[in-house]
């Protein structure tokens, strides 16, 4: 009975979203107050209905209701309690419900925190968000109903994908989805401004905090996903340029560009059309990501679920969203760039360069990701684009970004003699060069790559510190939240760059054939393999290895990598053992038994400073959050 109620409330939510996409919009068009006023209650009611539906699905998981097909496919009576909560979004139908829930949550939050905005604006923005909700609710109800019954009910479930039975998976999908869906807010503000025909910079001020928060969540989601892949997939890599990773990275890059161009548009009025296009692009790329992940058109490490019909639905929805918004843009966009003029060496120019580099990277990744599809359509054979393509081009495009980053904040708006910032930054450039040279000669096993990483990090950190010092020295200027956030995020870029280059250039990875008692030396660490024993878990049986690690004869860590065989589905999973610190990670994973006499394949990795990658990402995300809390955005808007 309860699952049917879940479907009913989902259908009610569909009707509410239909009302939300029509009524307020008509009201705003005709200047009809009461119709416009329906937007807020409708948004709240929609959230309530979806929340009920979501709670009922969770309840079905908690109660082991295997008469629901989705539960039977993705849970099992042995599944531990905490994973019964996360199993809700472990496959297609449930993750779509989570997506819809988060979209409704964003919509309700916009409704709640938009009291200072004029009524027609609120009505239009919420209506656009209602349309997006309508699309996804229809998708859920008509192609991916999570409440579908299984008759007769299954005796036991097929179990949740063991890859996803992990703490990281509790947070990764919600964070990522909050980010993806959050770009819908900037999109809705942009489209609402286009519908209104008032394409001034006002909508940008309203949507800036939302964009920053969405981008920060996306950053957290991607970083957590990368960390999860690092220790759960058992390969020890942190980024694979896999299509699904690319799908989340493209909106991130465009979102980063959007965060910067919105700042220019809000403060100076320049780049209006461009900012609008970026807002449309960021959300469209989020939708494209959903399409790539869900349709299974690409072979990927984590294409867990795939179904061509569903892919077609998203593709049509994507075409409607992109086509519709671009058409609207073509009709209504500002014909003349009305911003203030700026010189070739001004902060505007540097932010423009930032935007071009970020969007070019996104375009490059898009091309590489879709190229196999394109080649297949043109009958050029079945191809795959290797990670070196992405790696090489990404570094080529990001190198100038790193080089230009410290200049941005130090430049003045409109006009600046570039010699002044150059003079300020010269000592830091020198210091970065010296740091690079020292690294090259003194870093254990350091290469030119390590040196470039350190030099780049010192350069960004120094330039950012120079800007901070300048602000503190000048009288009467305070640190706004906006500025603090920017400094934090830029420092995060420095930490990230250092982490990537050090890890990539100095990691040691060795696959060995080991039997009990064998010892292996890696970069001063001695790994002693003590054998493998059987070890039962709640819903799996593990082969549990013991590896003792010593340095200079002193014990450093005892590590227990596992090979788990899950009882319900029979899948085998590698559970790597990590001993992490800021300066290095020790990583041991069990490969496979090699013979009957206790020989095992082992992966032994030493990864210096790999944690900086995620620390840097965390700093960028925090920076984005801090900016969103700038008081300026909460000041009531003066009526024009």
């Amino acid at each position: 009975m309860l699952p049917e109620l879940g479907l009913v409330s989902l259908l009610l939510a569909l009707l509410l979203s239909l009302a939300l996409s029509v009524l307020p919009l008509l009201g705003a068009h005709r200047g009809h107050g009461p119709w416009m006023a329906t937007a807020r209650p409708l948004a709240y009611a929609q959230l309530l209905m979806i929340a009920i539906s979501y709670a009922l699905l969770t309840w079905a998981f908690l109660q082991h209701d295997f008469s629901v097909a989705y539960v039977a496919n993705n849970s099992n009576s042995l599944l531990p309690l905490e994973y019964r909560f996360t199993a809700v979004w472990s496959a297609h139908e449930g993750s779509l419900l989570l997506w819809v829930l988060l979209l409704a949550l964003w919509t309700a939050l916009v409704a709640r925190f938009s009291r200072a905005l004029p009524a027609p604006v609120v009505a239009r923005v919420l209506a656009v968000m209602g349309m997006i909700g309508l699309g996804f609710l229809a998708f859920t109800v008509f192609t991916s109903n999570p409440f579908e019954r299984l008759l007769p009910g299954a005796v036991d479930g097929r179990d949740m994908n063991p890859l996803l039975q992990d703490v990281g998976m509790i947070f990764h999908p919600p964070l990522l989805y909050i980010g993806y869906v959050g770009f819908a807010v900037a999109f809705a503000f942009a489209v609402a401004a286009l519908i209104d025909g008032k394409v001034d910079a006002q909508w940008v001020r309203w949507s800036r905090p939302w964009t920053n928060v969405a981008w920060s969540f996306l950053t957290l989601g991607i970083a957590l996903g990368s960390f999860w892949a690092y220790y759960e997939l058992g390969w020890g890599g942190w980024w694979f340029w896999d299509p699904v990773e690319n799908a989340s990275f493209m909106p991130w890059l465009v979102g980063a560009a959007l965060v910067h161009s919105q700042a220019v548009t809000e403060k100076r009025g320049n780049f209006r059309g461009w900012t609008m296009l970026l807002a449309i692009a960021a959300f469209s790329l989020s939708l494209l990501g959903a399409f790539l992940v869900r349709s299974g058109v690409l072979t990927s490490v984590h294409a867990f679920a795939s179904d061509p019909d569903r892919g077609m639905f998203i593709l049509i929805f994507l075409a409607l969203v992109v086509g519709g918004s671009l058409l609207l843009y073509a009709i209504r966009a500002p014909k003349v760039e009305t911003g203030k003029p700026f010189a070739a060496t001004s902060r505007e120019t540097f932010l423009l360069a930032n935007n071009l580099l970020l969007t070019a990277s996104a375009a490059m990744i898009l091309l590489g990701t879709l190229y196999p599809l394109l080649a297949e359509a043109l009958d050029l054979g079945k191809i795959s684009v290797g990670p070196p393509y992405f790696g090489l081009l990404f570094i080529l495009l990001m190198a100038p970004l790193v080089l230009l980053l410290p200049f941005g904040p130090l430049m003045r708006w409109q006009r600046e003699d570039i010699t002044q910032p150059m003079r300020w930054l010269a000592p830091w450039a020198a210091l970065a060069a010296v740091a690079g040279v020292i690294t090259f000669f003194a870093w254990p096993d350091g290469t030119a790559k390590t040196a470039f990483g350190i030099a780049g990090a010192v350069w960004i950190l120094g330039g950012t510190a120079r800007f901070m010092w300048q602000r503190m020295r000048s009288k009467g200027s305070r640190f706004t939240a906006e500025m603090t956030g920017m400094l934090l995020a830029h420092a995060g870029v420095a930490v990230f760059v250092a982490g990537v280059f050090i890890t990539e250039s100095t990691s040691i990875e060795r696959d060995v054939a080991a039997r009990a008692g064998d010892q292996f030396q890696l970069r001063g660490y001695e790994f002693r393999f003590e054998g493998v024993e059987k070890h039962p878990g709640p819903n799996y049986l593990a082969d549990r290895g013991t590896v003792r690690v010593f340095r200079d004869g002193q014990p450093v860590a005892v590590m227990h990598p596992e090979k788990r065989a899950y009882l319900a589905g029979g899948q085998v999973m590698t559970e790597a053992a990590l001993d992490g610190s800021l300066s290095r990670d020790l990583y041991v994973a069990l490969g496979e038994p090699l013979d009957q006499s206790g020989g095992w394949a082992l992966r032994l990795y030493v990864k210096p400073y790999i944690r900086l990658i995620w620390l840097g990402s965390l700093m960028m995300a925090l920076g984005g959050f801090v900016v969103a809390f700038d008081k300026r955005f909460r000041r009531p808007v003066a009526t024009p």
Partner: protein
Amino acid sequence: MNPTRKRRLWLILALVAASGVAATLVTLALRENITYLYTPSQVYAGEATDQAVFRLGGMVAKQSLTREYGTLKVSFGVTDGDAVMTTHYDGILPDLFRENQAVIATGRREGDEFVATQILAKHDEQYMPREVALAMGKAHEKHEVPAAAQGAADKPGGY
């Protein structure tokens, strides 16, 4: 020319130059990093001769896995139903690697055998990588054998 026009001209020239450089770089990088997928029969038919590095797709032949004692060296047969190609690999096989399951090996041909640098065996029991299924289907078509693999290609990933 007035200054505005002059600036615009420079901007356009710069954009053209930049996109030219970008297009060249992307093309070069793509050409270097594309790998094609072939089945063993396609390889023996000589379709892969112009590719130094390519991906070999198929099923791991039954009872073909052998290990060299005390090392990580393994060899196994990759089959598409028509031809079997012995494949050598020195490293740890993925969790989902099993005999009679789909596999994609990246590497190069040496004589009549294949030396892999990377082995992928993803997806669960019911699912075969779409591209492998399609390639195998093609191999079957050529020999006028009913394509058993086609059904697997359309099946969603078990969820």
